[in-house]
């Protein structure tokens, strides 16, 4: 699949933002620092959501995406993200201005933040035609990235370090199952063309000499060539380096270094998530 920058930035930033907002919602901070921390969470989440609009062909109609929540995970995600941001707003104001609202809105917002990230993951996990995505490990990866991102930004290493370990294990599982997902889905050139009943199928001639939308969007081969290397970068930068930074450094420096490396790792992982995912339509072109 084509790793479109807008979608990568969207899933990484909004995931990290919602993770951090959930943490703020649950724990609570007060005073001026609350303004900046809540602002950071909102900034990340909203920046991600805005980025997602950039890959639309007709973004002016984006509001229509709220209509099909009964069937569409993308529509559910739109609702969940707006509800989440709405729920956190009174909590953020209360924390900043000391209104003493209690944690009700924060806890409800944290739950909805989880729902939002789950919906984001399901947009991909629902797609059967991309076997690597159509797997139970996809929502855990997105959720683990969100929670770990929030904890890294908080700098609470007691919680962040175990969560980064969980993230590492989740990633390893996702890659482990992903490697055999395509074969397990059972789609082959023979089943795609139905010509397996005649014999072994290979491409004699492509249907067109130029490129097309399908080739650009769904038959992206660059990522797979470097998959092992990118996987290593993702693991080192989003799990190992933030852990070391939080363990060895202290204060603001630890958070900045950990968050920066984590972001690089998350972007690498998300780039690979798209780039190495194979769509079954590639079978018609004899490519994967």
């Amino acid at each position, binding site marked *: 699949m084509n790793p479109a920058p807008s979608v990568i930035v969207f899933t990484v930033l909004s995931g990290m933002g919602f993770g951090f907002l959930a943490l703020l919602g649950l724990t609570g901070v007060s005073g001026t620092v609350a303004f900046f921390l809540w602002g950071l969470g909102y900034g990340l989440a909203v920046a991600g959501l805005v980025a997602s609009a950039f890959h639309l*062909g007709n973004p002016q109609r984006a509001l229509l995406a709220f209509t099909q929540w009964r069937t569409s995970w993308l529509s559910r995600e739109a609702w969940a993200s707006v509800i989440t941001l709405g729920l956190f707003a009174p909590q953020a104001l209360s924390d900043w201005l000391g209104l003493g609202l209690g944690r009700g809105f924060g806890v409800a917002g944290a739950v909805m933040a989880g729902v939002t990230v789950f919906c984001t993951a399901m947009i991909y996990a629902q797609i059967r035609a991309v076997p690597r995505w159509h797997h139970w490990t996809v929502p855990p990866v997105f959720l683990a990235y969100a929670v770990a991102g929030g904890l890294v930004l908080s700098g609470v290493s007691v919680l962040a370090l175990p969560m980064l370990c969980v993230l590492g294990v989740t990633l390893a599982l996702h890659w482990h199952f992903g490697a055999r997902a395509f074969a397990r889905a059972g789609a082959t050139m023979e089943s795609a063309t139905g010509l397996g009943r005649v014999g072994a199928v290979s491409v004699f001639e492509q249907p067109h000499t130029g490129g097309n939308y399908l080739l650009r969007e769904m038959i992206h081969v660059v990522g797979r060539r470097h998959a092992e290397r990118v996987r290593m970068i993702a693991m080192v930068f989003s799990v190992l380096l933030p852990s070391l930074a939080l363990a060895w450094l202290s204060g603001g420096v630890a958070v900045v270094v950990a968050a920066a490396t984590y972001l690089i790792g998350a972007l690498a992982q998300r780039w690979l998530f798209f780039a190495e995912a194979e769509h079954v339509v590639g079978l018609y072109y004899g490519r994967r």
Partner: protein
Amino acid sequence: MTGLPERTEKKLGLVIDLDTCVGCHACVTACKGWNDQGYGAPLSDQNPYGADPSGTFLNRVHSYAVQPTDTAAQIINFPRSCLHCEDAPCVTVCPTGASYKRAEDGIVLVNEAACIGCGLCAWACPYGARELDQAAGVMKKCTLCVDRIYNEALPEADREPACVRTCPTGARHFGDFADPESKVSRLTAEREGFALMPEMGTRPVNRYLPPRKKDRPEEASLLAPLLDIKATGLAGWLDRVLGKI
């Protein structure tokens, strides 16, 4: 609404005969020609006369070399377009309700006025039936020529999809699969028509007819009995003697 209809009154679709298709791409051209005018945004081309031309098509013809285990390879031409699936994943993923399946005849269509061009339906389709038009930013797909098949302004012979109407070898057939007596249903039954990638759970409506069994070259010559000449007389004696030396 992007929920799928429980059942559709008709199940309109195509039968594509892989035995008869010669891979001439006339259906591709006719489809592009018809859908450049009238229904929805025209199928655009980018840089059509330049070094790297690209464009939107609703129908593409592949050619495969198929190697049976025990005889010579065959070339099979393979037109690929929307299969108007009963469990169309492209419909349910749509966030805006632009993508829908008609309850009356089962045609899967896109309401372009509601399409935001997110591309999710194209991802959801295993068959590559949908292409995002790069000029209009909306999703394009086969409409089964919905603006021809019910169009009373056209002569009756023309009230079928452009690809079917134009096919010079009669490799494409249009009809209602819900009617067991229709031409498409009978062809499917007689020729063991099959669906593509059933493992994707989409329940396609369109069917493909497999190539007919080809004649095989005879193992032994047809003249074998006539060539089995028993030599007699002088020739027979020579044959025996020379064989012994």
